[in-house]
């Protein structure tokens, strides 16, 4: 009996050891490499050896093993049409040599991994997803201080930033040193931890990564954060409003451009030898009129985010006075035409708290912030002139 057990155990141990060794030698990347080497003629193999390839970028504190499988990425003469053996498209590698930059600093993903799924960041607990396709443009702005200078290579990043300005996001969100504090600071939204998104992940389709989260949020903010009605709460608890962020009705390509811009806002702090200087400040524009200058102020500070493009209104504010809507600005002249000083005071101080539609329900999430320290007095005068001019867009009474 003991002899049988002894033989059984020792043999199974030997077999297990063999299995472990076999699994270790026959890994995903070894198979991929074998597939690649088979396509090469004898002469072409010179200088190529099997094994894990890695780019050690000590300046960026990264080790990228992507070239273990992406073997021809910097060797166009050996490249095939099929992934992962394609060459890097375009001329980018000439200005960004892989020895200096590696791969993941631009493309994201898990450089240390040697299995495709893990390397592409499609696994749990890796919070740097692969920036597929045009999303990779998000990485340009992390080093290029002046993205306009590389506009041809990063059109989405530029479009995204322009959209961010145009839709009035700055009215509620701050990015670095500019923007309001009504809502989240977006300075490092591109590295926001997944642990802070878990409640949102429950409301969206997989993949549960930052890209999908940003896209869902931009498409339909309230879907991720629908709030809780009092009847679904324990008795006595205050209701929770849905997300206050307006739905901007963005088209798919606009969502993508904005996502690229937001993904570019990360905590990543490249060494100075990797960065290019920011664009010199543009000369102060000359405006033809006070109204034109006022319109520029209106757009720069993101008033449109809440008051609508051109002050048209229509944005919802849960439990706000005036029919739960943020006031349109078309009637400013009718209200404040005779009392411009109080209009200016309102802009300087903001309006907090906002009057509630139903005093029993919680206070509104959106409010008019104070602009006193942000908008200069001359700009404020121009802004007021612009606001007073908005009523011209109202349909005129028929009799006049």
């Amino acid at each position, binding site marked *: 009996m003991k002899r049988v057990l002894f033989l059984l155990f020792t043999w199974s141990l030997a077999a297990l050891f063999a299995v472990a060794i076999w699994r270790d030698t026959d890994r995903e990347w070894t198979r991929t490499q074998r597939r690649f080497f088979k396509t090469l003629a004898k002469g072409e193999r010179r200088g190529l050896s099997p094994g894990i390839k890695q780019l050690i970028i000590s300046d960026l504190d990264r080790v990228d093993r992507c070239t273990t499988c992406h073997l021809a990425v910097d060797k166009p003469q050996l490249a095939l049409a099929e992934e992962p053996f394609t060459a890097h498209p375009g001329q980018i590698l000439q200005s960004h040599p892989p020895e200096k930059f590696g791969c993941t600093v631009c493309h994201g993903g898990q450089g240390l991994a040697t*299995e495709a799924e*893990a390397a592409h960041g499609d696994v749990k607990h890796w919070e740097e997803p692969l920036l597929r396709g045009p999303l990779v443009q998000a990485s340009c702005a992390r080093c290029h201080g002046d993205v306009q200078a590389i506009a041809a290579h990063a059109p989405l990043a530029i479009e995204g930033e322009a959209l961010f300005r145009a839709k009035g996001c700055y009215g509620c969100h701050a990015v670095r040193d500019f923007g309001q504090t009504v809502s989240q600071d977006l300075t490092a939204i591109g590295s926001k*931890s997944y642990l802070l998104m878990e409640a949102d992940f429950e409301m969206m389709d997989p993949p549960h990564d930052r890209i999908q989260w940003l896209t869902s949020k931009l498409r339909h903010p309230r879907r991720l954060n629908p709030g809780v009605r009092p009847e679904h709460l324990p008795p006595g608890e205050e209701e929770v409003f849905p997300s206050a962020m307006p739905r901007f009705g963005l088209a798919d390509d606009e969502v993508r451009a904005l996502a690229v811009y937001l993904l570019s806002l990360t905590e990543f702090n490249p060494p100075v030898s990797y960065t290019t200087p920011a664009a010199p400040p543009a000369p102060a524009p000359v405006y033809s009129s006070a109204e034109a200058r006022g319109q520029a102020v209106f757009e720069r500070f993101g008033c449109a985010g809440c008051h609508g493009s051109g002050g048209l209104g229509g944005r919802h504010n849960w439990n706000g006075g005036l029919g739960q809507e943020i006031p349109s600005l078309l009637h400013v002249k009718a209200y404040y035409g005779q009392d411009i000083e109080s209009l200016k005071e309102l802009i300087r101080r903001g309006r907090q708290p906002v009057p509630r539609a139903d005093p029993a329900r919680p206070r509104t999430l959106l409010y008019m912030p104070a602009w006193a320290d942000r908008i200069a007095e001359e700009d404020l005068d121009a802004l007021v002139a612009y606001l007073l001019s908005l009523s011209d867009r109202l349909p005129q009474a028929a009799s006049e």
Partner: protein
Amino acid sequence: MMPVKQYLKKTKVWKSIFRHDFTDTPRTRLLRVFGNVFLHLHPVRIAKDAIRVTYTWGQGGLSFYLFLVLIVTGILLMFYYRPASSLAYRDIKDLSFALTLGQLLRNMHRWAAHLMVVTVIFHMVRVFLTGAYKPPREYNWVVGVLLLVMTLFLSYTGYLLPWDQLALWAVTVGAQMAANSPMLGSEGPFRLPFITTSNDARFGLIGGTVIGDATLIRFYVLHCIAVPFIFSVFLCVHLWRVRKDSFSKQTGEKVDVWPHLISREFLAALLITVILFVWSIVMNAPLEAEANLNVTPNPSKAPWYFVGLQELLVYFDPWIAGVVLPTLIIVGLMAIPYVDTNPKGIGYWARMRWRRIGGLPVWYPEERPLAVSVFMLGIVMWFVLIFIGTYCRGPNWEWYWPWEPWSHRRIAKLTLKSLPNLWGGLLLAGYFLFGVPVPAKAKRFSGALHLGLGLLMSAALFVPLLIAPDADYPLRSRSQTLFEALGRSTNAPVVAGMYQLVQRGGPWIGYPLIAGLIGLVGLALGWMGTRFARLKDRLYEGLGPLKYAIVMALLLMMMGVLGKIALRLLFGLKYLLSLPAFNFNI
């Protein structure tokens, strides 16, 4: 081949290494054991019954073997691991992705550590149940308890080293308990005046005010050098004592250790290696995102063997759950051989029998029934708490059934109230009075005394629930009395039921029914007390006052933990006695 071997055996080199030949004669069997430094810890001959697998289940030997496995795999891991916060996580990734057999190595170390905790606990249970801790082996039991504590501490310090979120926050849970130590913790009760966050027990454990590089190097040295060293010293004592104090089973004829015991040990080691190997091939050791002090996973769980303590945090203040109770458990375990004076039950498993206790069929050991039941209750409680903490707790440490998916959007509201200190103190006093044996002069009134005590406890619990004002009113609560607040809540089924009784049936039906309930509970407690009284008298006579006090205090505290859990889950009670000025809440 044979002539070569014959020649080799005649050479000086061979003879200098091997002192005897290997033919199977009685003489060589002995020589193999005491001629070999690694085997000579064994006796040369041993009782046949002692080496039966079903006596020891090999748990002690396996613990030792797993310790060796951990040393070997640990040394190999040390070649690849650098204990610095910027490198540690990457080194673990390298182990998984780039190193030949690296993942297997890490898996083996991790799973062997878990397995060792299990075998050490099982070894302790076996030693208890076969009475092997009894004289003359009391001291070796104490050493064994120390080894158990060190096993847990070794495992805990190793938990931080991968430097991922799992590690960081599991260690945070443990380190936070140190901050709640009485006197020496910056957040504990009776804090000494000079204790701050930068010189308290937590600071000593993690080497800083937050977990960082200093903690990593500290845990690394503790895990790889300091604790294994002390562990080995105690292990030597433990094994040597097994020889010196003689093995607990001495029946059956004597047989040669080689081959009878050695072969069994070898087979057991082989079997556990096969299991470990399969486990390590099939399942990878967990590795989450890199440690980040700024975001906490929800929930954050301690390593599984400490999850029981973490679950106790629900019911007790951190200094009780995290410091007092573990200390009591360790001290209580060590005290067992010194307070258990029953000479029976050494060297065999007690025979189990079905018996009726008050109509209930109970599977009952024929000998040492009290000792076995109490010890096993403690062990089972420990594992039940671990099970609850591991499988039934989700985000915000809320209750989820194991089959329920977790949700970070679920909104649950617990209504928890404290009894007024006077009533709660009365309840506690009544409970601990139960442990006092009735004096000889009052023996005649024993029944009445116990019934009175039961009624007192029942009243001390229910009366304040009915009449006490809600101390949180009007700041947070919408109800004026405890009865109303807890009666409307969803987490105090007993009080809610009573409240419904009054609401539905009206006060004239409701209150008399409740009074009946109070009386019934009191009588039930009193009846249990009278049943308990005979046991108390027997124990007191057998043990004398000092040992009796120790045994009874430990027993009451263990049952008290159960009682406190029941009070919280059934009555929505948070504290019985609350002295916020001293951070003292029970």
